[in-house]
């Protein structure tokens, strides 16, 4: 029983924990505690119900009901438009995240280890992170035209700063007592970095990757909405322009779905590979 509870938490991840509405009775609360999956299903169900009711009222003619949206979602999958849209959206996202992930983690670790690198590079990323990136996205059009390169660049622009800065902070704040321990057992500098500093920093590095991935999603959608009308962004724009609101909502919801699943997968990977102790208690 315990084991299965923990397994559930692990796969779904605490990041997306869904809280039950406050009004529920204690007995129900206990039931949900025992079966966290149930509480999520019920909570989502209530949300969809509220959506359905709000859609039927209706609060606006541009606000479809849940069932209309779900139906539109099914049709868009069936006619292949959703799949092909994701084909062109995910490609720059994957390339951009892969580049940002590798470059960002390496750069972050180097900055965390070397004062010189920190001095040279950190200010740039601190400025970039606080800049209103959405406003800078249209610049890419001018520089790179439209297409895969522009979308990939948009992903990198949004994802890289947060990945770099998290990696840098994580390494800089690695537990000094563990570093001293490794040194006292005559660990080399390389062993210190690979066996102590990076594993110690990995939760924060991974938090950076998750934030970077979320930012990358924003980047690619913004690029599609603002500069290169393709992929899922184009699907949204198109259905909005022809007032197919159910289809538009289905496309938006699908983005939330895809990003949630990706983030949960990343978290499951982290727990499995880097920090096995988190699997227990």
């Amino acid at each position, binding site marked *: 029983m315990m084991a299965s509870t923990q397994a559930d938490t692990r796969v779904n991840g605490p990041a997306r924990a869904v809280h039950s509405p406050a009004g529920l009775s204690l007995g129900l609360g206990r039931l949900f505690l025992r079966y966290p999956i149930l509480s999520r299903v019920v909570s989502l169900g209530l949300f969809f119900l509220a959506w359905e009711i709000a859609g039927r009222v209706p609060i606006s003619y541009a606000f479809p009901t849940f069932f209309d949206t779900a139906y539109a979602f099914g049709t868009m999958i069936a006619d292949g438009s959703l799949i092909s849209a994701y084909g062109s959206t995910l490609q720059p996202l994957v390339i951009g995240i892969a580049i940002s992930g590798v470059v960002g983690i390496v750069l972050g670790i180097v900055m965390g280890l070397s004062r010189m690198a920190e001095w040279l590079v950190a200010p740039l990323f601190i400025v970039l992170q606080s800049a209103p990136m959405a406003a800078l996205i249209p610049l890419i059009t001018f520089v790179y035209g439209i297409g895969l390169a522009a979308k990939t660049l948009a992903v990198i622009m949004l994802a890289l700063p947060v990945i770099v800065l998290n990696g840098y902070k994580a390494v800089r704040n690695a537990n000094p*007592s563990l570093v*001293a321990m490794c040194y006292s057992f005559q660990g080399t500098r390389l062993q210190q970095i690979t066996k102590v500093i990076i594993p110690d920093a990995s939760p924060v590095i991974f938090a950076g990757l998750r934030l970077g991935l979320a930012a990358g999603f924003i980047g690619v959608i913004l690029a599609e909405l603002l500069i290169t009308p393709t992929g899922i962004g184009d699907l949204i724009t198109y259905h909005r322009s022809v007032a197919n609101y159910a289809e538009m909502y289905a496309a938006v919801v699908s983005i939330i779905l895809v990003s949630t699943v990706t983030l949960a997968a990343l978290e499951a990977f982290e727990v499995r590979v880097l920090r096995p*102790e988190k699997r227990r208690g």
Partner: protein
Amino acid sequence: MTMSDAVFNIEKDVPADAVVEVRGICKKYGEVEALRNIDLDFPRGKLTTLLGPSGCGKTTLLKIIAGLIEPSAGEVRVNGRPVTGPGPERAFVFQDFALMPWATVMRNVAFGLELKGMGKAERQSIAAKYIAEVGLSGFEDKYPHELSGGMRQRVGLARAFAVNAEVLLLDEPFSAVDEQNRRKFQEDLLRLVEKERKTFIFVTHSIEEAVYVSDRIVLLSRRPGRVSQIIEPKIDRTASPDAIRRDQGYLDTVEEIWQGLKHYVD
């Protein structure tokens, strides 16, 4: 075995057989003078305690001996060789355990050997022996957060034993343990001292603990730390723990140290 016996015999002819010699150590942290001109010898195979008021520089001195901190002046020699950094003949037990939370008890204990590049099977069999010795058999696959404070400290102790260093440096190893467990650990420590025949340098601020476990007690004065007194408790360690704690010699030594330290307490 024969090697160490041989070394021991040679060393025995030298009148003062000190493994660790501390010569004129001074340490300043900026304006703060932590240690002033410390001269000390740590005899081989004995447990020497550094005792003194909080902030007098006990941890600093221990870390200088370990080679983790550079002294501002003076020199530490281990087996006659000047210390320039950590070395295989010394192992440190950290006050805050310094266990890797992502590693099991087994990996933590074997970590010193892993860093030396020893193969997995070999280092695990050595680690298993010391895990058993500190009474943690059955906990090999647990992670540090699944252990109590006292158990974590034992992991740190086993890790230091596993690298088979001659000199063990222990910084307040029992500070995270309650009184009952503390007494038990002190007895375990005495048993390990007996069994391992190593040199222990032990930091504590408990007078009773110092008298109970030590062959020699070095009293440090308040900052800047200087050696104020060296006491060798004459206690019959073959007696039962309870008998020792009621022994007149034990009680007198505790009192003597207390008198010596009392004027530091305002």
